[in-house]
């Protein structure tokens, strides 16, 4: 098994996602970056699932878990996009730096 490649790919994807979340000003892009992070996790889940159950191919718990994550991610992005939409409606901008009303 070549686990390393998968883990490496997941790590790269994760880092790109983190970068996107931290550096992007566009709300939609931030949401997309979150998707990248989640997918990096999914890759890890599937890779470890296949690695641990290499002798028992009927066991697909890793893959199933990844499916759950995708479902939750879809819901999350739905909520997130709704938020972005509302922010846009209120401020005619989706720059999340403008949304700093929590400033102390």
């Amino acid at each position, binding site marked *: 098994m070549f686990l390393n490649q998968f883990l490496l790919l997941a790590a790269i994807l994760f880092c790109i996602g*983190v970068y996107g*979340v931290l550096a992007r000003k566009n709300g939609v892009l*931030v949401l997309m970056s979150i998707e990248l992070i989640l997918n990096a996790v999914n890759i890890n889940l599937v890779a470890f699932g296949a690695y641990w159950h290499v002798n028992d191919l009927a066991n697909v718990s890793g893959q199933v878990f990844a499916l759950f994550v995708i479902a939750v991610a879809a819901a999350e992005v739905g909520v997130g996009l709704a938020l972005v939409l509302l922010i846009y409606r209120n401020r005619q901008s989706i720059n*999340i*730096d403008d*949304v*700093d*009303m929590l*400033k*102390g």
Partner: protein
Amino acid sequence: MLNMIDKVWIIPALMAVSFLVILFFGKRWGTKVTAGIGIASVSICLILSVVVAGNWINRVNNPPTGTALAAEIVQANGLTPQTGQTISEEVNAATKDSGETVATDSYGASDESVPPVVRTVTWFQIGGLQFEMGTLVDGLAAMMLITVCIISLLVHIYSTEYLRGDVRFTHYYAFLSLFTASMLFYVLSSNTLQMLMGWELVGVCSFGLIGHWWEEKKNTDAALKAFLTNRVGDIGLILGVIITFFAAGGSSFNVLHLNEYALSGNANTTLLLVGALCLFGGVTSKSGQFPLHTWLPDAMAGPTPVSALIHAATMVVAGVYLIARLYGVFFSGLAIGSSTFHYVAFIGGFTTIIGGLLAFVQTDLKKVLAYSTISQLGYMVMALGVGAWTAGVFHLFTHAFFKACLFLGAGSVAHACHHTFDMREMGGLRKKMPVTHATFLIATLALAGIFPLAGFWSKDEILAGSANGQENAYTIMLIFGLITAFLTAAYMGRAYWMTFWGKYRGHAHPHESPRVITVPLIILAGCAVVLGFTNFPKSFFGFKLPGSFTTRFEHFVEPTFAFPPIAHAPFTPWLAIASTILAAGGLFVAYQYYEKNRGPHGLTSRSKIAHAGYTFLENKYYLDNLYTGVIAGSTTGPLARAANWSNQNIIDGAVNGIGNGARKIAGVVYAVADQIIIDGAVNGSGQGSEGAGQLLRKIQTGKVQQYASILFAGAVVLAGVLVFVV
């Protein structure tokens, strides 16, 4: 037969429940239900009391013997086994020689001891001392139970009409129930502490009922006077209870224990004398003895049925009952068996006369009866004082009925005459109120002591007791008694003729009272006729009834256990004749003077001495003036000045000093503790948190991505720790 004698506590408890029910639900359920509850409870109590009396008669006829008796005596005394042993030996000896008498004649076995039935529970323990609550049933208690229940029942019934439409009808019935409960509790008490409680409870009820119509100031004044006068005596009672308790070894308040100690022969008679005199202080106030009798006539401000129940038949005899109950203490304390003269007998005799004299100058029918009650209570106390225990208690018993009859009769008259008791506005009522008149006449004759009514027998026994007495005759008491026999007949004749004969002088339209009122009167009058025969003498002018019909009252009521050896005066023919002649003479004189208007009328305006005497009587021997004017007045003035001085100088000084000191201390406390320490702490913590806040608000940028960066940085640090450190 149902054995109630062990469970006799149910009787007062029932009345207490009735009190609570009436108190809480009476207003809601209406007057009919209220009266119904009261009447039903008293009826049940009466039935149970009759059962108790039956049990007691059964016990006297079939007394416990041998070991059963010894066990009962130990239980009755609540004594420790060691002392109990000597007693049971004594009693075994007593039962042995009485065994023969039991076999031959079950009625004549008066030598044997029938201990009262005592049932106690521990109330509380303190300092190794056990305080008990319990019931003591003997003939005396059973007699009192029946007396209280009968009169209470009749008064309950009577009041439904007498107090119809009263604003505080339920309040009245609640108090009646409470009074009955307290009185039953009192007569069933097994120890003096409990008696004290019952004594105070009946006092409270008396207070509440005298002041029943408190809208009028004179009624509240009367209630207060009754209460305060009784307090004076009650101090004596409390002291007496304490003294007798310590005199008898300080181990038990048990009545039997006290009596046994007093009669044991090695008793400290000086201490007992002091104790008995202190107890007599309580008797003096509660039973209206001279000089604390002044509250009783004023107590007539209460509703008439209350006067009949409380201030004639039951509560006022509580004092007489106390002497009868603790007779051992009084007997050896006052040396009743061996002295010719002592305080209790004298006060009793003196009270009979002063009460009788005062009754002549009253125009208020109820006050005549009140002074008559004082006089008769004096009779009872005198009888107990001269050692004629049975005579005194028997008079208590008969007097309760005919005096209640007189009071209820007076109430019936007043009910017809627009609620006035003024005899000057009555007269000629015998045609208009035939039933009231007949019952009043019977009760009057019974009180005057006319053969064969109840009063004749009991009064005669007292006179015989004073004449034959104990070893020495109490001649002076006999003279007191004979004078009173005349006075009683005369003032009752006066009241009777003024009320029922002559022409009607009032402005109302009197009519006979309804049956609710007359039936109790008839029952009481019937009692006044027959009850005297309960103690029919052994030989009446040579006429002898079978032994099982004579002196039944003495046989069943007189204690035979822990009781002093008193002599029983036989029926004395010449005394009976003399007292009857005196009574008839009294009635005759009253008839001539008040009805026929013969004799020296207008004497008071002609003779200075007679006038002075009349004024003296009218002012009630100036006792009230003495109490309120001299004693209270002379103490309140200086007392007030002294109080003022101490107020100005001592108390104000202390208060001001404390105030100034407090102000100075407060100044220091304010400057140092408050301003520096506490404010410093408060301000410091405030400033500290403000500074911290100022620092921390810098990181609170509101920029989500900055937060996320910190989050990730934190995650990286944690991951680094996880990998490299752990």
